[in-house]
């Protein structure tokens, strides 16, 4: 039974039904994605059967956004993949429009909870930050292990001149949920954006992020912490695109894989012909915590001008034997030594995230994935 039909779109009775139908047409016309395409290399897209899901919705709560709720979903976006089109057709959007000069002191927290079994959901979050404004947004995706589902979220960030946008998505999904996310940001002159992710949940969870710098002096950072166990797969695909001169970007992705889980990081630094005086860094580090786990790291550079400073680094490997020995030589049991090293490994990332009060909870979830019986008790918290 085909679920993703024009009738299903019309039944939403949205004001922008024409745009939604056009997006659905693009989706229908797109070839079936395959891991043979570069975009889906190392992914589990071949396992996805859309027929198993019908369009549905999440329970979404928004806190701290009263002053900035808007309606314009910014349709001038770059090409997304077909899940971006499907999202446009069936989306339910939260739009945050920060007026010029406004600074939000407290973070906006958007929480999506998946409670219905077998549905596909398409949340869209738009952060449109006006000139010299400032906003922090935390978007949480939550479900328990009993439900199956597909979540294909879209994030769209626009930071106007000198705006500061900090975004964190937290994947706390159950072990039977698929996530295929598309994130895009545009940074204008002298703007600052941080797009960050903590990925702990999901069966297959993918986040594709494209950060563009279109105004001189703009800077953007991408930071992620991911930890897969069981048979999970975490899949990240990032682009740092420098279009304007004197722009800077930085990326730090740190992940761990346990049991027979997998992770993939594919990152591109793309520096256009006009982007003179640009600085771009990219670092991806992975810990493999069991023999059956697998992590892949694929950094790429595409540079079309000479005047740039650029570097990338990536590592995949087990816990350092020397670190383990050092801690064990203090009388610490191997599983606790491992937990200390892994939490320490992630600390560098956690310190850069707007996690606030979430930090302790995240540390506990990370510890739980190490399958050690001991509850962490960090004295320096």
């Amino acid at each position: 039974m085909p679920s993703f039909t024009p009738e299903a779109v019309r039944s939403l009775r949205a004001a922008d039904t024409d745009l939604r139908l056009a997006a659905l047409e693009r989706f229908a016309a797109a070839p079936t994605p395959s891991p043979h395409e570069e975009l889906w290399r190392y992914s589990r897209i071949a396992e996805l059967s859309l027929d198993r899901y019908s369009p549905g919705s999440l329970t979404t709560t928004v806190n701290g956004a009263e002053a900035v709720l808007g309606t314009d979903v910014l349709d001038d976006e770059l090409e997304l993949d077909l899940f971006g089109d499907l999202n446009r057709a069936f989306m339910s959007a939260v739009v945050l429009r920060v007026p010029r000069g406004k600074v939000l002191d407290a973070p906006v927290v958007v929480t999506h909870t998946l409670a219905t079994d077998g549905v596909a959901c398409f949340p869209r979050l738009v952060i449109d930050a006006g000139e010299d404004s400032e906003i922090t947004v935390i978007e949480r995706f939550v479900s328990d292990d009993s439900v199956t589902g597909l979540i294909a979220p879209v994030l769209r960030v626009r930071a106007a001149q000198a705006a500061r946008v900090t975004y964190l998505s937290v994947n706390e999904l159950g072990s039977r949920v698929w996530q295929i996310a598309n994130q895009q940001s545009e940074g204008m002159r002298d703007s600052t954006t941080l797009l960050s992710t903590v990925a702990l949940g999901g069966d297959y969870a993918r986040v594709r992020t494209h950060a563009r710098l279109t105004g001189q002096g703009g800077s953007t950072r991408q930071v992620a912490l991911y930890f897969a166990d069981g048979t999970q797969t975490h899949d990240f695909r990032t682009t740092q695109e420098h279009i304007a001169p004197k722009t800077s970007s930085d990326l730090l992705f740190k992940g761990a894989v346990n049991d027979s889980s997998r992770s993939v990081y594919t990152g591109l630094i793309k520096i256009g012909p006009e982007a003179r005086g640009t600085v771009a860094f990219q670092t991806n580090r992975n810990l493999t915590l069991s023999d059956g786990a697998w992590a892949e790291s694929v950094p790429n550079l595409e540079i079309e001008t000479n005047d740039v400073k650029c570097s990338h680094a990536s590592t995949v490997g087990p816990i350092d034997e020397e670190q383990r020995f050092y801690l064990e030589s203090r009388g610490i049991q191997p599983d606790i030594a491992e937990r200390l090293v892994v939490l320490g490994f992630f600390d560098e990332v956690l310190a850069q995230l707007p996690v606030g009060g979430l930090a302790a909870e995240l540390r506990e979830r990370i510890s739980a994935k190490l399958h050690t019986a001991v509850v962490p008790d960090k004295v320096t918290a």
Partner: protein
Amino acid sequence: MTTLKISGLHASVAGKTILNGIDLEVSSGQVHAVMGPNGAGKSTLSAVVMGKPGYTVSSGSVTLDGVDMLALPTWQRAQAGLHLVMQYPTEVPGVAVVDVLAEAFAARGRSTDDIRAQLSVEAARINFDETFLARSLNVDLSGGEKKRNETLQLAMLQPKIAILDELDSGLDIDALRDCSRRVEAATNEDGLGVLVITHYSRLLKELKPDVVHILVKGRIVSSGGPELVDVLERDGYAAFEGDQVDPASSALDDLFGMPSSRN
């Protein structure tokens, strides 16, 4: 009274034999120094006693009060009362010494309630800046700070027998004095037994060993009182590089034009 007993210890790394039969006994309150040239096997000895991965023991034994240490994993050797102060303390990003000590206390069933107060006291005793207590272990620390950090852990964990692997490498005179005085206090006040491994005699001017052993090519070729250090100062290791000869007879051999190495 605790005794660490090393008997006939043979060990290799990557198929290469490094220790060729070590016999040593260190008891509570004693300071034993093991001196030797580069490549003699000094660091291998400390690594094997503590159970560092990558070393193979082919024969011999290491016991602590009769308990076979070689049969235990590293963490249980530490809990039994052994402690290793490392020559090059490992950097562990994101892990603070206070967290390590809290876990090490918990693992021993010791209360962590006033661990911060104890740390402050111990840090002050060796002039260790307290701001380092919450920083990543050994990351961006100077040589002296690293060794103070090692000494701090030794003081906090109160082992029975400590092996100091080149405590004197990479630190300045002040740090050397602070660290060795703290170790000396542990020896005098708490009966800590110490096996100090070093290349140079300057540490031994601070730590004042009861017994000095000369390690050459994986074997202890001479043992004696502190006066052995003076022989070394005068003649260097060359005097000991024959096969298990005692330096006095070696000197006699030299006098009579005999070859200094036998066998």
